[in-house]
């Protein structure tokens, strides 16, 4: 046990991790030129091991071409094509382990105390999940946990030199930051809300994920919607649905596709019974890699009732884009009509936003934007809240654990695009920043005081 602890808390390991972190940050930044930020993030940072064989050469094409133009580049090119690197998760994980281990070995905090802190953190996380993160005053609790704990530690080892407290604080802050990063990558959800002036939105939609919605009329202008998330479609198999008289059997699912018109005499790849699948076909293509490209998912599905096929359909995100050109896909089962729609995954809100006005100011005589803003009316039937809010650059609207940012707009300046972000771990970096800065300042201040004292004596 001690050997393991010593290994993880060794300074050499920390330095190795830091250097690897630098290397992957450099490569991960260079490759953004070719594949965009999000894909680079996936390849380098949200990854255990980066394998050039699997994911392409380190640093990307443009960088490798640049290296090729230099003299004696063969060896580098070979390295970039063959040598695997630890990914962000691995480097971060080892560093986290090292930080925690150092509490035992370097600061001699005592196993029970670390256990207590860890337990409190776990309980807190669990409590947050239970209570709902939005309303949870997480940072207060975090301080309530850490400050007494530190005081305890300082008291128990009152011989402990102050600088150690500084170093401990600093490292604690880094732990919080790494945990925050992990939670963010697990929990953060980014969607978009698109509203045209005068219209009302009750949901935001994802840029990354789709859903297969089965929509039926519920009377009173209301709709019944059953939506199958992308993850289920991706898994395939038969999906049974509550409240629906039929099940959906996925024949094939494509993460990115083109929608092509069938050539004369060509038969669809699957025996489609109805809808645009009879005149068009979906063909799989490589996932989107550029910054402003998106994936168009598609699939062929069977509808099955009591083990008997009802029909086979092509569902494609392109169908949603060309709603007015392609026929709607309606299925009648048991005397009721259901519409099959592949669409960007929606997240309905218990409240609504109405866009009153979108403004796009430019600096006079230039195209340089001065400000974008959306004046919206917020209506929440649950609390009866009804208020007018202004969303602009650097001043988002925060409501119900979600934050609405002014992200973009459509040409014509009548339609606003709001970025809707839900990140229950968003407060962790703030705590981390305070804790680390305090720790470092304490540490350096003590150094400085000692140094001046020494000078005064000399």
């Amino acid at each position, binding site marked *: 046990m001690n050997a393991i602890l010593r290994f993880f808390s060794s300074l050499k390991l920390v*330095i190795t991790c*830091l250097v690897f972190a630098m290397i992957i940050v450099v490569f991960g*930044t260079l490759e953004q030129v070719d594949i965009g930020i999000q894909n680079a993030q996936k390849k380098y940072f949200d990854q255990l091991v980066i394998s050039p064989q699997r994911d392409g050469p380190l640093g990307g094409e443009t960088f490798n071409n640049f290296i090729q133009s230099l003299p004696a580049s063969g060896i580098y090119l070979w390295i970039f094509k063959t040598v695997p690197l630890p990914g962000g998760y691995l480097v971060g994980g080892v560093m986290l382990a090292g930080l925690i281990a150092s509490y035992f070995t370097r600061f001699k905090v005592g196993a029970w105390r670390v256990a207590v802190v860890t337990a409190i953190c776990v309980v807190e996380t669990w409590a947050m999940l239970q209570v709902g993160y939005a309303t949870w005053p997480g940072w207060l609790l975090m301080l309530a946990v850490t400050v007494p704990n530190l005081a305890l530690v300082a008291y128990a080892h009152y011989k402990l030199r102050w600088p150690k407290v500084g170093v401990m604080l600093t490292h604690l802050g880094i732990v919080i930051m790494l945990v925050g990063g992990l939670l963010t990558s697990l929990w953060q959800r980014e969607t978009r809300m698109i509203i045209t002036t005068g219209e009302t939105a009750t949901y935001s939609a994802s840029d990354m994920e789709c859903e297969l919605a089965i929509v039926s009329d519920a009377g009173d202008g209301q709709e019944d919607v059953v939506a199958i998330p992308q993850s289920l479609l991706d898994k395939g198999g038969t999906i049974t649905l509550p409240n629906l008289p039929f099940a959906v059997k996925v024949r094939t699912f494509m993460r990115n596709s083109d929608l092509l018109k069938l050539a004369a005499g060509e038969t669809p790849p699957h025996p489609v019974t109805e809808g645009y699948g009879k005149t068009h076909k979906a063909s799989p293509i490589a996932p989107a890699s550029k910054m402003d490209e998106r994936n168009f998912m598609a699939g062929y599905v069977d509808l099955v009732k009591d083990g008997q096929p009802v029909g086979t359909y092509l569902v494609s995100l392109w169908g949603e884009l060309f709603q007015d050109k392609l026929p709607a896909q309606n299925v009648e089962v048991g005397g009721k009509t259901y519409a099959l729609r592949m669409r960007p995954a929606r997240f309905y809100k218990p409240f609504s936003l109405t866009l009153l006005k979108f403004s796009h100011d430019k600096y*006079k005589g230039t195209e340089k934007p001065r400000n974008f803003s959306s004046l919206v009316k917020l209506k929440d039937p649950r609390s009866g809240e009804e208020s007018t809010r202004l969303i602009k650059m650097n001043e988002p609207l925060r409501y119900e654990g979600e934050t609405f940012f002014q992200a973009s707009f459509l040409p014509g300046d009548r339609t606003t695009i709001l970025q809707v972000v839900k990140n229950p771990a968003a407060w962790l970096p703030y705590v981390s920043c305070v804790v680390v800065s305090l720790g470092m*300042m304490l540490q350096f201040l003590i150094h400085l005081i000692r140094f001046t004292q020494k000078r005064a004596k000399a």
Partner: protein
Amino acid sequence: MKTETSPTTGWTRWLPHAVLLCAVIGFVMSFRPPKAKTEINVREFGSLPVLVKGRIQPWDSLARNALLSIREVSDFNDRDLSVKMSASEWLLETMCKPAEANARKVFKVDELDLKTLLGAENKAVKFFSANEIAAKLNDLREVLKSGTETTTDGRMRQKKTSELTPYQKAAQQLWRKFNYYLVIQNAIHVADTQTFQAQMEQVLSGAEQEPAKDKFSWETELSRYEQYLPKDFASIHAQPGKDELTKEQRVYFVFVQRYKQLQEEAAFGENAVGITPSAKNPDEFDTLFESLTKAVFAQKVDAGVRNYSRMVTAYQRGDASAFNTALTDQQALLAAVPGALSTAKHERIFNDADPFNFTITLYVCVLLLSLFSWLGMAQPLGKATRWLLVFTFALHTAGIITRIVLIDRPPVINLYSAAVFVGWGAAGLALLLEFYFRGCIASAAAAMVGFGTLIIANHKALEGDTLEMMQAVLDSNFWLATHVVIINLGYSATYLAGTLGILYVLRGVFTPSLDAELGKKLERSVYAITCFAALFSFTGTVLGGIWADQSWGRFWGWDPKENGALLIVLWCLVMLHARWGGYMGARGLMAAAIFGNIVTSISFFGTNMLDIGLHSYGRSENGALRLWQFSLSQLALIALALLPLKWWRSGKQLAKTT
């Protein structure tokens, strides 16, 4: 300290005072306005406010930025003809006397093929006149065409900058500069009144009497325009055919046709110059075209445009008193816009003072003094160096504060101001070190960083107005004042540590002057500064994350600039941990600090070259090459640092302690 115990005697006692006095006198001298060449009040003209790129500024700033962009210096100096003009003088001539101005060799061209295209006889020719360029416009257009490609759907578009040859790039740049020049030339006056007069007479000939023989002035042209403004604007557009227009109306359309070219020129770039307060909203300024268009509704030409027309005419006739009267009238008119006159005037004074340029000279002096102090007379020279550094730092500070006041923004708003600020921060930190440790090493480092960053800033100034308005997303004084300032102080610290490392290596390897005590001092300094750098880089980076979280809901987005900042933090942590673990001695620390120079430069400049993400402002053409060369030079220094001690000329002394 041995060297500083020698008593100060005789004249050396006065040395620091003398040095400081020289610096102060030098600054005051540079501040003094140049002697006016004519009675025409060019200085006051240069202080008149105009609106360019959303910012109220004096003509003088417009003139300087224009010259910087097309000539790469902020005044006009033709050595062959020994003509020297200030920016404002050049601007006034360019706007009022196009014929003379277009013959001036004002455009700087470096690319050889482009020089040949423009008809240069040999490589030594550097500058070209607007006339020379105008004569080759068609050839230039051909070159530009070769830099475009046809997309799959048949549209023409620009090739990516990286795919262009240097020739095509240079041609594109020249094209832009030339258009910019035309826009400025026509900012208050539409050139070529005579040709126009002929056109107008042609329309009028027949019914009207024989027109007067003397030539129109711009002032007269505007009076005529006012005279022919249609009384009922709607009726003109209601008229179906050209034949049914009256003669007066046809003359009006000749005017309209003529002024339309102004708008077409301005459309090439975002270079429009607002010259006169708009009637509806005095904060907005109208360009000449806008104002002339609006004249239809007001039934008269705007008073500001008329004042300028009087100045143009007076300038052409060399009538100084008429010019100055019109100038005073324009000032009276602009007094209605709150703050415009005084803002512009203060900025012009700042332009004249040009504190950063003088600061560059002072940093060189500090460096020289430091070097001399290492050779002998350490005490008086050291004192002189410190005093001079304090004065230089004060001047540097004053310059930064003036900029803050002028635009009401925190010190760092673009790469230019970042460079200025990083140098300032390094000088400040070095000053602290100097007062702790003495020995002029920190002063020398401050001078090197200050000099280097200000030179870089001068290059950045070529790219346009350095007091520019902020992009909407960056428009937050709070975050500019915290995140950006702290991050840049982090850069200051890493550069200072790196420079101290360089001095350690150079003195140690090439001179016997690095003794154990000095070595220890430097080691402590570099360590302390690295701690500072770690604190500031980390805090700054996290604050940036918090800003991002506040602005678009993402704490960390792996944007290149964020990654660059992270690299600095990581490198500082590597250094500190390696130091604490005892894996790195003095030379290792110095080598690591020098490597910090590379990391910081990549973060500071390199990430902007990738042209992706939210921080991709301020790209530069030769940047990548310069960065590469700089990195190589630093690697060479690191190699020196890692030489075995026995090859160091100070090796024996250093070995004593280690």
